[in-house]
Each structure stands twice: as structure tokens, then as C-alpha cells.
């Protein structure tokens, strides 16, 4: 890997991203950590049709771009990004079109509160998610993202998840345990966990770290998510971001005309 070429590739992805919205806990990984993460998970996603359940960080674009520039030797066969933020969707498709990656990477608007659309159900070999960290709800919001990922993959698929992992904050360990339990209950075995692997652009907790968790689904295991996808229960939406933290925004709409217009930039769309 040529470090300069790789960092410049990440830089091109980063300037294409919309600004993070703190009301949804959108926080961005630091650039060097994005490069390391892209390199790390690309091996697990080798030749896999992969779905990203949310991708504010734009790791999907990083991997695709680095592979196309031959900075990574292996990577996924195709990538589809699902996100509730239309600004993220537009940024992925804009980048994809500009670089001619349309046959490799695409993105569509989707909120994990909704049933997973049928065209995605069981269609992928791997999923990737970096969900809200679940500090205030013991990881319940993480389970929503994992659930949609599990629904989207085949019975022997791979899960790549980024989860908070910071020893100074006691909630991290219980959330991580709950996420692992959820995966195991759904037929996965944890195959790798790289602790304290990433850091973030955060004013208030600049040292906060997250881990990279890889899990593989055992094809012979019957799980609780087989069958049709259903909307998240109303009571789960009421506490999606913790007590008194409901999920009441269905989509973030992009008002910038794909980054070209004078506008208020975005608007929140209710359910």
C-alpha cells in the first residue's frame, strides 16, 4: 500500500461526505483509522456482495475506492449502502457516478425502523454496520441495526460491526456483551474482536474508542429472524435513543440539490 495514495483516496471520500448531525449521534471516525478499518475489513468482505446498514463514515466508499486504485488487493464484489440520511445516499451515488463505480457500489434510502425491503432480504454474503453506540439504551439501537443486517445476509454470512469499546466508560462493556449475545442468539460465532481499534472526531470524549467485531453465521442454526422482515415495535422506537429518546425522524432529506444549491441543506421528515 502506498501511504500517500491511500490517504489521498480517503481524503477524496471525506470531502464528499455531508456534515454529521449530532441529533442522531452521527460522529465521524478519524481519517487514519478509516484507512486501517477499510484495510482490515476488506479481507473479511473478500468477493462478497455486501450491504452496509448505515454508513455515515463512508467506509464503503473508502474500500471500493482503495480497491479501484489498487491500494487494496482484495475487497467486496459489490456494495450496497442503506441509510436513512438522503445526504449520505446522494454522496455515495455522486461519488460512484463520478468515478465510474456504479456497477460496484450504490445506495438507497432506508430506515432500520421499517421492514427490510424484499429485494435485500437474504441477498448478501456480508453486512457491515457502525450503529449508534447505544449508551443510553444498553445497546437496543445496535440490535436494530444488527437485525437488519442479519435479515439481509445468507445463512452463512459475515457480520462486521463497529461498537464502542472504551474502558473508562462502564456502559461500553455491557453494550458490547449485549451485542455479542444478540449475535450468538442469532446463530453467529464471534470470530474476531480487535479492541480499541478506532477513534473519532469528538469534542467531549476525544479518547473514545471502538472495536472491530467480526462474526460468522453458522448456516445450520435456526434463528429468531427467519421469515419476513417486520417493522420495529412501537415501544422500541419510543426508546430508540434511550429513555425519553424516541426515534421520530423517518428520513433526513437532502435540500442541497446534490450539493449544488443555496439551501438550508437538510430537513427532517417524520414517520
Amino acid at each position: 500500500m502506498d501511504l500517500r495514495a491511500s490517504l489521498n483516496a480517503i481524503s477524496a471520500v471525506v470531502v464528499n461526505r455531508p456534515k454529521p448531525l449530532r441529533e442522531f449521534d452521527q460522529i465521524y471516525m478519524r481519517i487514519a483509522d478509516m484507512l486501517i478499518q477499510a484495510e482490515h475489513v476488506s479481507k473479511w468482505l473478500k468477493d462478497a456482495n455486501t450491504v452496509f446498514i448505515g454508513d455515515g463514515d463512508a467506509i464503503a466508499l473508502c474500500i471500493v475506492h482503495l480497491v479501484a486504485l489498487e491500494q487494496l488487493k482484495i475487497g467486496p464484489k459489490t456494495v450496497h449502502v442503506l441509510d436513512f440520511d438522503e445526504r449520505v445516499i446522494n454522496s455515495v451515488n455522486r461519488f460512484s457516478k463520478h468515478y465510474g463505480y456504479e456497477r460496484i457500489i450504490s445506495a438507497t434510502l432506508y430506515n432500520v425502523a421499517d421492514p427490510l425491503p424484499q429485494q435485500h432480504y437474504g441477498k448478501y454474503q456480508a453486512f457491515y454496520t457502525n450503529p449508534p453506540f447505544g449508551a443510553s439504551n444498553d445497546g437496543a439501537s445496535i440490535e436494530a441495526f444488527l437485525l437488519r443486517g442479519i435479515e439481509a445476509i445468507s445463512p452463512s454470512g459475515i457480520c462486521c460491526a463497529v461498537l464502542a469499546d472504551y474502558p473508562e466508560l462502564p456502559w461500553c462493556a455491557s453494550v458490547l456483551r449485549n451485542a455479542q449475545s444478540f449475535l450468538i442468539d442469532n446463530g453467529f460465532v464471534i470470530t474476531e474482536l480487535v479492541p480499541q481499534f478506532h477513534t473519532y472526531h469528538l469534542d467531549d470524549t476525544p479518547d473514545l474508542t471502538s472495536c472491530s467485531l467480526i462474526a460468522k453465521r453458522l448456516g445450520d442454526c435456526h434463528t429468531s429472524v427467519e421469515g419476513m422482515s417486520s417493522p420495529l415495535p412501537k415501544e422500541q422506537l419510543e426508546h430508540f435513543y434511550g429513555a425519553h429518546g424516541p426515534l421520530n425522524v423517518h428520513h433526513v432529506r437532502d435540500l442541497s440539490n446534490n450539493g449544488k444549491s443555496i439551501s438550508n441543506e437538510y430537513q427532517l421528515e417524520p414517520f
Partner: protein
Amino acid sequence: MAEKPENFMFMKVGNHAGEDFESIIKRKMDEFHKTGMIFWGYGGNTCHPLTQVRPFVKSVVEKGGMVHLLMEPIDSRAEPDLLPATEYSDDGLIWKPIPKGIRVVGSRYAVVLGEIKPSDFELPLGNYHVGIGRSRGYPADKYIKGRVDKACLSLAEVRRDAEHIVQIGFTAEIIDPYAVMVRNSEAIRPRKSFKF
């Protein structure tokens, strides 16, 4: 209010948007006498009104408690955009006009207060930790530093009385709707065309 509160919002305060702190307090008290409430504007990347302040205050209020804003006056020269807010929202979806008689300038958020009362007591931040959000459980005396000048705090199990003493100069009860987003409805920011 108790000088050793269990749950509160802490904020460093001072001059703001070209107005000295004394004038701000006087103007805010006038607003309180006219409207029965105060919108205390703030910004920054901590204490988001919807994901932190409102859930924090609601969780205390539903148990019969109340939450105060504890202000530490400091020498601040914040000079943000002077555009006054014209709308507020407690959910990010429905925006209402700022109540007549209230003026919020140069802020993205506001905590909604009752009467502001002068106070004079020392508060050891070492006794507290962050009470909500991603940093929940993080020691307050380590958290409040640099650009981090506000937090929703709760009494910690491990207390270090002598650590990071702050002098509280004013207090006010946080009242319903507790905290809101504010904006100027006419403000549209020019955005450059995107280029790779």
C-alpha cells in the same frame, strides 16, 4: 435549590454576541417577567437539546425531582453570528415562533429556564460525572475542559471533593420544554458547488 444537587446542568457563562454578561442577565430577567420563561441560548457539540438535555431533565422530573442550570461566570468573549432566532423546536420536526418578548441571538440551542437567581457557592466537579449520552459515567472534572464548557451532570459514587472546584454565580430551574433547537427561518447559507 440545594448547594449539593444530585442532578444539574452546568455551564460556563459570560459575554456573548457583543453583549456583556450583566446586560444579558438583566435582559433575560426582563424576558422572564414578561413571558414567565427564559430561553438561554447556547451552542457547541455537547448538550444537544433533543438527545441529551431533554431526556436528562425528563428522567429526573418523572421521579419527582427538578434540574437546575448552574452557571459559572467566566471571562468569555464569544462572538458568534448575531442573527436572532425566530423559531424553536423541541423535536426537530415541528417549528414554532419564538415567544413574543424573548430574544435569542447567535445560538443553535436554548435551555428553557425559570427565574435566574444570584448564587454564590463552590461546587466540586470531582463529585460528579456525566449523566447522559455517550460520555455517561465520565468524571466531570476531566470532562469539563478545553472547548467543553457545559454538561448534564449527576452525583458520582466515587467522590473527590477537592477536585476542580468551580464557583457558581447564578442558578435557574430548567422548565418545560427544558431545551429546544432554535433557528432563523430566513437564514439560508450559500453552499458552494461540490467539486472532486
